[in-house]
C-alpha cells in the first residue's frame, strides 16, 4: 500500500470540510437516496458523519475507525460490502446510495485521504453483484 505524505492528508481534510458547506440536501419526503454523484461529495455527505471530514475516525465509548491512510479499505470488494450491508456499528447504507454512488465513494476513499490503492476501480456492475452476496 502506498501512502501520500501527511501534509496531503491535511489538505484533503480541510478541503473536505469546506466542501461540506452548501451541499445539496435530499428532499426528506420524496427521495430515498443522496443527491450527490461524485465520490468526494458523497464522502462529505455521509461517510464524514462518522469517519470525520479528514477520515481520521473518532473515539468515544467505542470508536469509528479511521479511513485515512488505512488498511481498512485495502479491499474494494470488502469496502463495498461494508457500505452496502454494514458491519458491527456501521449501518447498512445500500438503500441511501445506488450502485454508481457506492462505486464512486469507495473509489474516492481508496485513492484519497492518504490512501493510494492503484488497482482497477470498482464499477457499478461489481457493486450490483456484491449486493447479491
Amino acid at each position: 500500500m502506498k501512502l501520500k505524505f501527511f501534509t496531503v492528508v491535511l489538505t484533503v481534510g480541510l478541503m473536505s470540510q469546506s466542501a461540506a458547506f452548501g451541499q445539496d440536501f435530499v428532499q426528506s419526503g420524496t427521495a430515498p437516496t443522496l443527491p450527490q454523484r461524485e465520490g468526494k461529495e458523497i464522502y462529505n455527505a455521509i461517510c464524514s458523519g462518522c469517519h470525520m471530514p479528514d477520515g481520521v475516525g473518532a473515539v468515544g465509548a467505542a470508536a469509528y475507525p479511521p479511513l485515512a491512510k488505512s488498511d481498512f479499505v485495502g479491499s474494494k470488494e470488502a469496502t463495498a460490502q461494508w457500505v452496502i450491508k454494514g458491519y458491527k456499528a456501521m449501518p447498512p447504507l445500500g438503500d441511501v446510495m445506488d450502485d454508481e454512488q457506492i462505486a464512486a465513494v469507495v473509489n474516492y476513499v481508496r485513492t484519497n485521504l492518504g490512501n493510494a490503492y492503484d488497482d482497477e476501480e470498482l464499477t457499478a456492475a461489481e457493486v450490483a453483484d456484491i449486493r447479491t452476496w
Partner: protein
Amino acid sequence: MVDHISGMTRRGVLTMIGLAAGASAMYTAMAGMGLAGTSNYKGPIKLEGDPKGTSVLILGAGLAGLTAALELHNAGYKVQVLEYREKAGGRCWTLRGGETYTELGGFKQEVKFTEGNYLNAGPWRIPSDHYAVLDYCRRFGVKLEPFIQQNYNAYLHNSQAFGGKPQRFKEIQADYRGQISELLAKAVDQKKLDGPLTDDDAALLVESLKRYGVLDENLAYVKSDATSIYRGWAKEPGGGVDAKGEPSDIISLSDILQGRLWQDLITGESIDHQAGIFQPVGGMDMIAQGFEREVKDLITYNAKVIKIEGSETGVSATYVDSNGGTAEKTVSADYCICTIPFSVLSQIEHNFSGEMTEAIDSVPYASSIKVGLEFKRRFWEEDEHIYGGISYTDTPITLISYPSNDYLSKGPGVLLGAYSWGAASYQFNAIPAEERIEIALKYGEMIHKQYRDEYSNGVTVAWHRVPWTLGCYGEWRDQEAHYDNACKMDQRTLMAGEHISYLPAWQEGAILSALNAIERLHKIVTAA
C-alpha cells in the same frame, strides 16, 4: 425499488414498505421504528425471596440500567453500576442553557437557551400506553403535561405543491375527508358500488358519510358555514356590527392528492401518538433524575468499560476513566446486566458465546438528527395561533414541532426545527453544527417567514456522533436469527436496553427489557 417513494420520514418509509410488501411487513417495520405495539407492563415488579447477598454488576446507567439498579437494590442485591457519562439517563437526555455538548470528532456546542427552555435530544414523548414509564413517573413524582402531537392549526407543507405555501392541517383534513366521503356517498347512493351492503346498510352508510364528511343534502362537500366549522373561515365570525363569518374556499381533491398532503394526516393517530400523550414538565431527563435520586450512590460515573469477562461463577468488567484515562480498574460480581448499546459493545473485548457475539455484531444504530432553535419570541403563537403540535414538510427537516408548554409566555421559545431519519439525517450528521442550524433555518423559513428575524441560537444532536451510543436506536439486521440468542443468559450476563425489546427506540422498551431480565435473574438466584 419503487421509483417514487417517500424515503426519509418514518411514515414515508412505512408507506413504501406497505406498498411493496403488504400489511404484515408493515407492522414489523412499524414495530422496528417504534411506531406500533403496546406495553406488556404488569405493574411494579415484585422480587420476592432472599437474594442471599448476591451481587450484580450493571453496565450502563440509561433507563434500562437504572431500572435494574433500583429494583435489584430494593430487593436486597448488592448493586454496582458503571456509567460512561458524568450523569445518568443515557438517551433520556435534555439539553439546557449553560451546558456544553461535545460530539464525536471533538466538535463542541454551547447551549445558549434562555432559562426554562430546553431540547429533549432523545425521546420527547410518553404515549399513554407506555405503562411502565408512566408508573415510574408516578413513583418518582415526575410531573407530566400534555404533549400536543396533532395540531389542526399547524401546517402540512410540500415545497413542490401549492407554490410552496404551507397549508393548514385542518383545511387538508376536512377537505380530504369531505371529498372522499362525497365520492363514496354518491357511488353508494347511485348503486355504483359492488359490495356486501344490504339496502339498509347502504342507506346508513350514506347517512354516516354525510355526517362524517360534512356533506350537504345533495351529498356534496361544498363551501359553506357547515364546512367552515371544520376547515376554518375566510373571515372569522365576531361580535357586533359586520361580524358575520364568511365561509372559506375548498381545496380541490386533485390538489390535495397531487400535493401529497394526505401523507401525514394519520401520523398522530397511531396508538403511540394518540392524545393523551405526555412530556415531563421541564424536560425528559426529569425521569432520569427521578431514578438517579434513588440509586446515585451505586453508580461509578466516567467509567469506560473496555473488557467484560464472564465465567460460570461471575462476571468482571474492566474500565478506564472516560476522559482519556489509562489506569485500568476491574470490578466483579456474581451476575451482570449489560445495557451497553450493541454498537458500542461490539467493540469491547469480551468472552461471550459465539451466538451472543453474532447477535451483538448484527445491530447497527439508526441515524437521526434533532435541531433545537431558540427564537426571540413565540411567533408561531402570536402570529399564527399554533399552540404546540407539529408541522410536517417534505424538506430535509421533516417537521417543526412547537413547544407544548409555557403558552403565551412573552420570552423566547424553542422549536424542534428538524427531526429526520434516513438519507437526510446522514447528511445532517456529516456537516458541522452551525451548518445543520443553517439548513434548519433555510427550510424552516419556507414555512415561517419570521425565522430569520426572530432566530436567536440553536443546538443540534446528530445521533451517529453521540459518543456513548454511536447512533439513535438498535436496528436488527436479522432480528429473527439473533434476538432470542441475545435474550439468553450468557454464562452470568443478561442483556437489556431498548434493543432487547419489541418497542425499540422507546423508553418503555428499555424499562420492560430490564424488568424482564431481572425477573429471570431473580428466579435463578432464588432457585439456587
